[in-house]
Every structure is written in C-alpha cells, then in structure tokens.
C-alpha cells in the first residue's frame, strides 16, 4: 500500500474518531445542567464547549499518535513474503 493511500486512510479514521468523540462528549460535557437559583421552573445550562472540544482534540491527537506508532512498526517489520525472504529461505 502506498503512503498516499495510508495517509488518506489515517485522515478518514481521524475524521471518524473526531465525529464519534464529538457525538459522545458534546451533549454530556458541553451542556452541564445546573439547578436554577433564580428561576424556580427547573434546570439551566452552564456551557462547557471549550472543555468538550479540547477533549475531542485530545482523543484525535492520541489516535493520530497511535497511527504513527503503528505505521512506524509496519515500516520496521520485514515483509514476510518478499522475494528476498523467499530467496533466503
């Protein structure tokens, strides 16, 4: 597989990870509910979108580092069925 293909796969995966992390974190972290002290009708929001997006960024960053780690591991590993290996065998 060419490195260009690898890069596009990594980018696709990172976008997907970011999307999933956004869906997971924005509702629960972004919209912090608090009991209203002024209004007796119920709950109000204390918005935490910055924290939510920071965590999403962190998750995408960690995923990217994993990709780099896996990629470097594959690069280091000799190809099992390469012509050179077959000849040596």
């Amino acid at each position: 597989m060419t490195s260009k293909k690898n890069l596009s796969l990594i980018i696709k995966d990172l976008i997907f990870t970011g999307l999933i992390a956004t869906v997971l974190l924005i509702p629960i972290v972004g919209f912090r509910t608090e009991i209203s002290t002024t209004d007796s009708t119920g709950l109000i929001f204390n918005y935490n979108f910055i924290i939510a997006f920071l965590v999403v960024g962190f998750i995408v960053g960690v995923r990217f580092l994993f990709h780099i780690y896996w990629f470097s591991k594959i690069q280091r590993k000799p190809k099992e069925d390469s012509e050179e290996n077959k000849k040596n065998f």
Partner: protein
Amino acid sequence: MEYFLQQLINSLTLGSIYGLIAIGYTMVYGIIGMINFAHGDVFMIGSFVSLIAMVILGVGTGAFLPLALLVVLFAAILITSVYGWTLERVAYRPLRGSFRLAALITALGASIFLQNFVQVSQGAKIKPIQPVIQGGFTFFENGSLVVSLSYLQIFIIIITIILLSIFSYIISKTPLGRSQRACEQDLTMSKLLGINVDKTISITFIIGASLASVAGMMFVLYYGVIDFFIGFLTGIKAFTAAVLGGIGSIPGAVIGGLLIGLIETFWSAYFTIEYKDVAVFSILVIVLIFRPYGILGKPEVEKV
C-alpha cells in the same frame, strides 16, 4: 381491591422500564456470554441525554409536546447507541479472545468510568425536572383512595409494547436477527459460515443501548429526578430481571422485568418501602439457588 389495582398499574410501568434494560443484558449474554455490567450506566447516560434534550427543547413549556418528546426520544437513542457501540469497540472487542474474567473486570471498569465521567461533567447533585406529561384517567375515587392510570403510564406501556414488537420482528424475521441467533448458538461456526460476527455483536450493543436509552427517557419522565448513580441500582435490578427470566432469553427478560416491577411495587405497598431492594435481591438469591437458568432459560447440557 382498588389499592391492589393501583399497585398493579404502577408495577406494570416500573416493570416495563426494567424489561427494556434487561433485554440489553440478556442479548449481550446470549451472544458473547459476558455480563455487561456497564449497561446500567448506558441507561443512566440515556436518561441524562434525554434530560438535556428536554431542557434544550423546553419540553413541558411549549405547545408541541408529542413532537418534542419524539425528538428527545430520537436524540437519546442516537447518542446512547453511539455510547453502546464505542463501549463494545473500545473496551470489549480487544478482549474477545481473552479469558472470561478479563471481560467481566473490563465491564466493571467501564461502569465505574461512565459513572465518574457523568459525575465530573454533570455534577454530583440530583437533577430534577418539572412533570412533563400530566393528567390521566380516574377509574375509582373514594376519599383518599384513587385508582388512576396516568397518560404518562399509558405512554410508557405503549412505547414498551411498540418497541418490543419491533424488536421481536427484527429477531425473528430479518437477516440481522438470523445472524444474531446464529451467533448465539455458536460464534465460531457463524464465522465459518460467513456471518460478520464483529458487525453482529456491534449491532447487538447498539440495540441494547437504544432500548436502555428509551428506558432512561421513561425514567426521567416518570420519576422526574436523576443523578449519576441511578444506573447502578436500576442496572442491577434489570440484571436480576434477566436472571429471573432466564439470561439469554429475550421473552424471559421482559417477563423477569415485569415480575421484578411487581415484586418491588407490591413489597413497597404492602410491607415496607425501605426493604424493597432487599426483597428484589432476595429473589435473585433464591432464583440462583433453586433455578439458576431462570423461568424461560434452558439448563446447560454438558456434552461428553
């Protein structure tokens, strides 16, 4: 008699909620043979997402209540399903070939993680909400004794029946249901026959989480108050329902849920409310001693 009738109505409502959660436990156990202890917390996430969606849409203050509730329901299903999928993909799939205890410990870890995640992000305080669906039918009124069926109870029971019908259809008539039943019988053989086992398991988690989110929404509407810890006790009770009905059996989970609802409600009504959890968990102990395979479960036959 009137008091009994009222308790019966209440127990059906509570039993429906337990039944919906219990299906998630029993499906996952049926397919991969593990008890997903984080399922109760997925239910808790579902209830929080419902609450947040209700506050965003201003449910209860606007005119289009049925439409708003439908939007809340879809939002809760969508987001909680993603939680269910992620849980399977991140926490359980890497350990699928591992020893059984590893998955169990991971499930407990995932449960504690979700609890703490919600505690930190939403706060430890309870979250109350104003009653959204009010009113109902009164069948009998004699002084302080009233037998009534509220619109909310009707809503809960109808939604449960609709979902269970859809779910039964999926399991019995669709290719997905066939794959699920095949995986339940033999995971390795299903793989050999070309069934995408990973996809089937993921969809099972998604369905379980969706049903838990609906239960979560009903819980918010019915009790009007939630906190980050509701998933633990409700989840364990739903697990008791799954065991009582026969873990691995979907009709058993529903029957178990209704029975647990019945026991809890009648115990609270006729004995003492403080010991209602003791009564429920005593059932778990009794079932595990005398009929470990539950009401509709089949005893495991060891082939020699």
